[in-house]
């Protein structure tokens, strides 16, 4: 039996999915969106606006659907699921990108040493009881010492030695230490955050670079031979110390005047110098004065051999 005629007749009843467009649509399929760059037909818009908008919407929706149905599909109980590519339009986010968590002191150290993070299982094998027990928590292994019914008292223990209290105190101390470290990590992260916000990325980078150079120089002289017998790398620059600079003994009157005036202006401001720390306004360093006075009256200073030091 030839069914091609029947098929053709059926197909002629079905409407086409083809749409003719002068300029192809700009489709961002990740957002299910099409932008039609074709200009509007003003005549039709004026005469029957709603019909015209309706037909335009149908055509563009059909084009979007054609595009959607051509995408790779996975099947699911609710129907085919089309896999979408990433979007091309950029829409603003609601919140900034999440910042990476600042590393703790241990994490920094581990990274520098190349220590891998190992997951510690909660269950520990108990040799005596031949079972797995929790490391901490109810019936945890960390309470073993406190819960022992018989404890060996050390030879030199005082009379009121309480082994249970001793063990419990040690545990509490460990917990307190850990908490302190945690808080310090938080503080350090906050400080780092506040300090970074004042500099722009370029300055930040420059500062880091200088710090890194300084650290490297320090490590190079930090071996037993002060870097003398260390393996040299190719292209490694020679270490240079700080070069001291002195003003010439004789210089022009102008220059001398300028230096003197600079000193004078510093004296005039009444600002505390960098060296005098904190809030003491007076010129006298009280602590130093007391130290000085007390030494005068008391024993003379002696050096390591026990000889009296002279000024």
């Amino acid at each position: 039996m030839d069914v091609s005629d029947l098929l053709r007749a059926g197909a002629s009843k079905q409407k086409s999915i083809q749409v003719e467009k002068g300029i192809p649509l700009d489709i961002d399929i990740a957002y299910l969106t099409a932008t039609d760059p074709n200009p509007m037909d003003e005549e039709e818009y004026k005469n029957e606006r709603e019909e015209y908008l309706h037909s335009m919407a149908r055509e563009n929706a059909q084009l979007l659907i054609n595009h959607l149905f051509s995408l790779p599909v996975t099947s699911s109980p609710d129907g085919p699921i089309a896999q979408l590519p990433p979007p091309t339009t950029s829409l603003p986010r609601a919140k900034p990108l999440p910042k990476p968590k600042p590393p703790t002191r241990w994490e920094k150290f581990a990274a520098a040493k190349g220590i891998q993070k190992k997951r510690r299982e909660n269950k520990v094998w108990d040799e005596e009881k031949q079972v797995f027990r929790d490391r901490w928590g109810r019936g945890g292994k960390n309470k073993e010492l406190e819960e022992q019914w018989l404890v060996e008292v050390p030879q030199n223990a005082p009379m009121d030695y309480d082994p249970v209290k001793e063990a419990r105190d040690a545990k509490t101390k460990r917990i307190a230490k850990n908490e302190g470290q945690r808080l310090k990590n938080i503080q350090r992260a906050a400080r780092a955050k506040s300090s970074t916000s004042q500099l722009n990325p370029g300055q930040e980078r420059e500062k880091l670079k200088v710090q890194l150079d300084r650290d490297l120089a320090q490590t190079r002289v930090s071996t037993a031979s002060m870097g003398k017998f260390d393996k040299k790398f190719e292209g490694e620059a020679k270490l240079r110390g700080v070069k001291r600079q002195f003003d010439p003994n004789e210089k022009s009157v102008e220059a001398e005047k300028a230096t003197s005036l600079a000193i004078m202006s510093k004296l005039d401001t009444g600002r505390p110098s960098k060296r005098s720390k904190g809030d003491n306004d007076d010129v006298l360093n009280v602590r130093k004065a007391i130290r000085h006075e007390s030494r005068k009256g008391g024993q003379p200073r002696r050096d390591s051999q026990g000889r009296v030091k002279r000024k």
Partner: protein
Amino acid sequence: MLRVVKPKNARSKRAMLAREPQEVEPPKTCIFVKGTSTGERLNGVLKDLMSLKRPNAVSFSKKNAVHPFESTDSFTFWSQKNDASLFLVGTHSKKRPHDLTFIRMYDYRVLEMLELGVEAYTPMSAFSGRKPPPGHRPLMTFDSPLFDTHPRFQQVKSLLLDLFNGAEIDAICLAGLEHVVQVSLAPPPPGFTNESTSSAELPLIHVRCYAMRFLASGQRTPRVELEPIGPSLDVSLRRSSPADEDLWRQATKRRKMEKRDVEHGLGKKRKNLAVDEGGDLIGRVHVGKQDLGKLQGRKVKALKEERTKRRKVDHDEEEEE
């Protein structure tokens, strides 16, 4: 500013974590704010747009004395309180009747604002078409070249797109496509150029919604038929405050994701997966409680049903036949 809260239990901690910035963001929540005196038209517009935006929508239906272009303090506060980053504000005054303001927030700050005047409106209830259930994503068409070239209309497109289709998804169920939102422009007036910005020179914007019907086409791709469902809005552009360039650049910043991350669900946390020492991926599956009643024990003769009994029954049946 809201006070800083430290979570007291695991549930509130999870809720606070969900509010923190995420690599792949959840859909934006929109707050629909009613001003002090909104007429029937604006109320209807807010209600209809909200029904299209649900479930990521919050209604502020009391009278709110807000003037977005004068002070944005309330929006900053509401945004933090509700964790919402879009606002649609309806206000009505003699000078600016039927005023609809879009506000987009970034990092709980106002990023940009756009004021529209609702010139004509037909509510959803006036159409008989099948309304889309909440949570379905519409197809969107922007039918004018101006949506790509003119800065004011680019803003309109960006805001409407963000309102209805903003969330990034990597797959969509084709059977769940329900409706189309069409945004088109009236033909531009005679003196219109790409530089003209005054409201009188800009063409009207038509927003129409249609329900989709799929008909057989003899191919895999179906034929689409549309039926209007409303709301149908004709809006004109009024004031706008575009986004600060720096802030916009910050807001559109994307972290370049590794291919592996993209393949494994776009930066979402992978739970119950581990790689063992041999490099094999191991998953942990919760299988429920085992029914020990059905457990097959050792097969011992003594535990078996008596054979002779069974045979006897068989014989009896045969004899009957």
